[in-house]
Structure formats: structure tokens, C-alpha cells
């Protein structure tokens, strides 16, 4: 190994350190024993994890977030899988534009989507409802489902479907018994991403939450405005652990290749 490649590695490691800095800081801060954020902690304790787990407000918000994320992931997967299959397996006009349209909430500003849905929900008298939250989250999670499934279906070997059809399987049966099982890895990946995008969303939720439907990220932000005890750090640490385990599990089982194209 020459000097240049050592330098290259050092630079790369430094950039990753920068990328992971705020997450590492949160994890260390959560272990503080005191009521203020000393860094590094003077005494180590897990009491703020207890504070989170025994707080009714935070527990309620966690359940709201889990519910909304689960329903969002299911709706996004169903809509996204159907659309991606049609776009990838069948020739049709405006295919390119349709794909751009379905994935456009990735780039178009979430803050505007949030405001638009707030004003829309107000007109329909649905402000602050769980349904409004699920719909808003599905708009921003749908592109992840569409992209994961579109990638899977474009690489899919269509002769397998033809074989099933030759053996007498109807199109619907072929889809559920042959096609879907074969793209299961992408289905799982798309579902996990849609779930995570919904669970940690703040931009859309900030506009759409109401009494009884406050999500965890919004509750965390509200709490931060009047207190800086390490409860937030403890919650953040649990979110970090959950997300890193989830993505790591995806890497180990179905692979993260979809992101590398």
C-alpha cells in the first residue's frame, strides 16, 4: 500500500466519521446520568431510557407512529407493486413520464406537500386525523416502493411467467404464486424503506398531527422546545438502534443492491 492509498483511505474514513458524528453524539449523550447534556457524560446511567418508557405522552406518540408507518408501508407497497409491475412488464405510452410522476415526491419539497395536505384536509374536515397522516406519509413513501419494485420487475425473468401460463396457470395465479414469491426480497426492502420513511417523517407530520395523533418525531420536537434533558437522546438512540439493525438485516438477507445502480 503506497502513501496515496493510505491518504485516500484516511480521507474516506474521515468523511464517514463526519456522516456518523451526530448519531454517535446522540448515543453517548443518552447515557448521561445528570439532567443536563454533559459531553462526555460524567456518570453513566440508563435512567433516561426509563423516563421514555414510562412517559405516557411518548408511549402514545410511539404507538401512533408505529401504526401510521405500518399502514403506510402496506398501502405504498400495494399501490407501488401494481404500478411498478405495469410499468416494467408491459409496453405502454408515457411509461417514462408515469415513472417520473410516481417518484416525483422524492425531489419535490415535502414541506409544500405538507402544507398542501393541511389545507386540503381542512377543506374536507379531516384535519388531525390518522387517515390524513397515513395519506400524507404514503405520498412520500410511495416512490421508495415503486423504485424497489420497478428495479425487481425489470430484472425479472419473464419466461418463468410464460412457463406457468403454459402449464395452465391463469395470470392472477401466476402473479401470486410465481412472480411475487420471486421478488420477495425487493418487496421486503421496499416495505422496510416505506415504513422507515414514514416512522421518522417530520415535514409532513408537522402539518397534519392533531390531538391524539401526534407522531414520535413531532412529540420529540415539541419536547425539545421546553426541555433539554437527555430523554430525547434516549429515544433517538433507540431509533438509531432500530434503523441500523433494520438496514443491516436487509443487507444481510436481501441486499442493498437496489440503491447501487
Amino acid at each position, binding site marked *: 500500500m503506497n502513501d*496515496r492509498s493510505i491518504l*485516500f*483511505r484516511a480521507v474516506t474514513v474521515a*468523511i464517514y466519521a*463526519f*456522516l456518523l*458524528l*451526530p*448519531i454517535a*453524539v*446522540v448515543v453517548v*449523550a443518552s447515557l448521561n446520568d445528570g439532567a443536563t*447534556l454533559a*459531553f462526555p457524560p460524567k456518570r453513566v446511567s440508563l435512567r433516561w431510557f426509563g423516563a421514555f418508557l414510562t412517559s405516557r405522552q411518548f408511549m402514545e406518540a410511539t404507538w401512533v407512529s408505529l401504526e401510521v408507518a405500518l399502514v403506510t408501508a402496506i398501502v405504498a407497497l400495494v399501490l407501488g407493486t*401494481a*404500478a411498478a409491475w*405495469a410499468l416494467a412488464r*408491459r409496453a*405502454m405510452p408515457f411509461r*417514462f413520464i408515469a415513472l*417520473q*410522476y*410516481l417518484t416525483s*415526491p*422524492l*425531489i*419535490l*419539497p415535502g*414541506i*409544500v*406537500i*405538507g*402544507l*398542501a*395536505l*393541511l*389545507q*386540503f384536509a381542512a377543506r374536507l374536515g379531516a384535519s388531525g386525523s390518522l387517515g390524513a397522516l397515513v395519506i400524507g406519509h404514503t*405520498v412520500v413513501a*410511495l416512490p421508495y416502493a415503486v423504485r424497489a419494485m420497478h428495479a425487481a420487475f425489470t430484472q425479472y425473468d419473464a419466461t418463468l411467467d410464460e412457463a406457468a401460463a403454459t402449464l395452465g396457470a391463469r*395470470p392472477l395465479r401466476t402473479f401470486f404464486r410465481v412472480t411475487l414469491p420471486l421478488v420477495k426480497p425487493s418487496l421486503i426492502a421496499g416495505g422496510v424503506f416505506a415504513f422507515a*420513511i414514514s416512522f*421518522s417523517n*417530520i*415535514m409532513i407530520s*408537522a*402539518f397534519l398531527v392533531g390531538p391524539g395523533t401526534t407522531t414520535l*418525531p413531532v412529540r420529540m*420536537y415539541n419536547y*425539545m422546545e421546553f426541555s433539554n434533558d437527555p430523554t430525547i437522546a434516549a429515544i*433517538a438512540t433507540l*431509533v*438509531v438502534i432500530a*434503523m*441500523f439493525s433494520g*438496514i*443491516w438485516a436487509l443487507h444481510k438477507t436481501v441486499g*442493498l443492491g437496489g*440503491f*447501487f445502480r
Partner: protein
Amino acid sequence: MIRAWLLLLPAVVFLGIFFGVPIALVAVTSFIAKGGGLALDQYRRFMLDGFYRSFLTESILVSVVTTAACVVLSFPVAYQLARARSGVRGVFLTLLIAPLMVGDVVRGYGWLVALGDFGVVNQALMWLGVVEKPVRLIFTPTGVVLGLVEVLLPFMVLPLAAAIGGIPAELEEAARSLGARHARVFRKVVLPLSLPGLAAGVVIVFALSMGSFAIPLFLGGVKVNMVGPLIFQQATLTVDGPFAAAVSCVLFATSLLLLIAYAWVGTALRGEPGGR
């Protein structure tokens, strides 16, 4: 094929009703004048009032600096990712993607703790002897840019790594065997061939930075004026719907133009509309 259309329909209609229609209503709202009727009052206020215009100019400034920093930082990371063995690549992909899923609240909070007067960054700077006493980082444009670069870097790295991965390694070896040094190989081979990926990344990062919300809210406070927090504040605290709508329309139109540019770059990259 009539059936394929039917499968595409639910997603298209869903986005139409819950994305297209609400955005169109925002556009209509933005033209509502104070006394009723339609007018450009809200746009005039946003563009001509120096205070409000500063939100747009500061957003652009912060986004330009953020994008430039991401371009510089993304090359080593993307190159390493593209040329790594697949097992190693999975580890680094996890490190890039997991933070995206963790979300902006957790990372914004982390930066708030890290950038404080006695946070790790200031402690490190003092230990290294760069500064004598803590420098103010929270509620400064520097702090916002640091947070945004960290949050948005993966969006630059991923398309760039994909582009670099498409360059045959033999091409670099050939250039080197002909006597070109590393810097020259980078400038003459890697850089030109990865430009489409870089362009895609630039468009995404700039658009996401312009529309960012949590990071400028946490790290900028009332000291750094950006469009995202302005829309939120006007809509929920000041309850000025039409003005929030006008600001939203300006931001949305900017992003839409960038999206079209992005689609165009993608088409150029793959050589045919729609790709594979």
C-alpha cells in the same frame, strides 16, 4: 394492454387526488387577494419586501454552498464504494443508508448537541488549538450547512457511485499503464465519465436543500432565514394561508424545474427515455 393500465391506475389516481389536487389548490390560494378576488399581492410581498426576500436569497446561498461541499466530499466516498468488493460495499452502503432512515429530527438533535458551545466540535477545535475559546456554530449559516451536508451527502454519493461503477476499471488501468498519474487519470477518465451521475446528484441535493425544514429549524433558529421554516411558520403560527401558499409555489416551481432537469439528465445518462 388494457389490464396493465388498470394496475397503474390506483397509484396514479392516489397521487393525483392527494398530491396533484392539493398542490393545485395551494396555487389557487396563493393568488387570493386580501379583499377577495385574485391578485399577485402575495408574490409581490415575498419578492419585494427585503425581509421576506432574504429567506429566498439565504436559502439559495446555503444550498449552493451545501451542494458544492457535497460535490467535493462525495468523490472519495463514491469511488471507494464503487470499487469495493461487494461484501465491503454492503457495510458502507449500510452506513450511508441507515442514517437516511433515522430521520432529520434525530440527526438535527445530534448536531445541536455536537455544535453547542461546549459540544464535541468546539472541544475538538480547542484541543487541536484551532480556536482559543468556543466559537458560535449553532444558529449560524455554518452550522446549517454542516447539518445539511451531513444529511444530503448520501443523495450525492449514491448516483455518483453508480456512475463510477459503470466505468470499467480496465480503463483506469490502461491510462495508468500509459504513464498517467492518479490525478491525471481522475481528471481525464473518472471525472468526465461520471459527470451524468454527478449532475443527477447536484440536482437532487440542491432541490432537497432548498426545501429543507428540520435542519434549518433546529440549527438555524431565527438567525438563519430559509424558505422551509418560513412556510411552516406562516402556515401554523401566523396562520397566513395565502402567503404560505405563495412561498410554497415559488419553492415548488423551482423544484419542478430541477426535477425536469434531473429527468433529462437521467435520459441522457441511459441513452433512451425510460431507461431499462
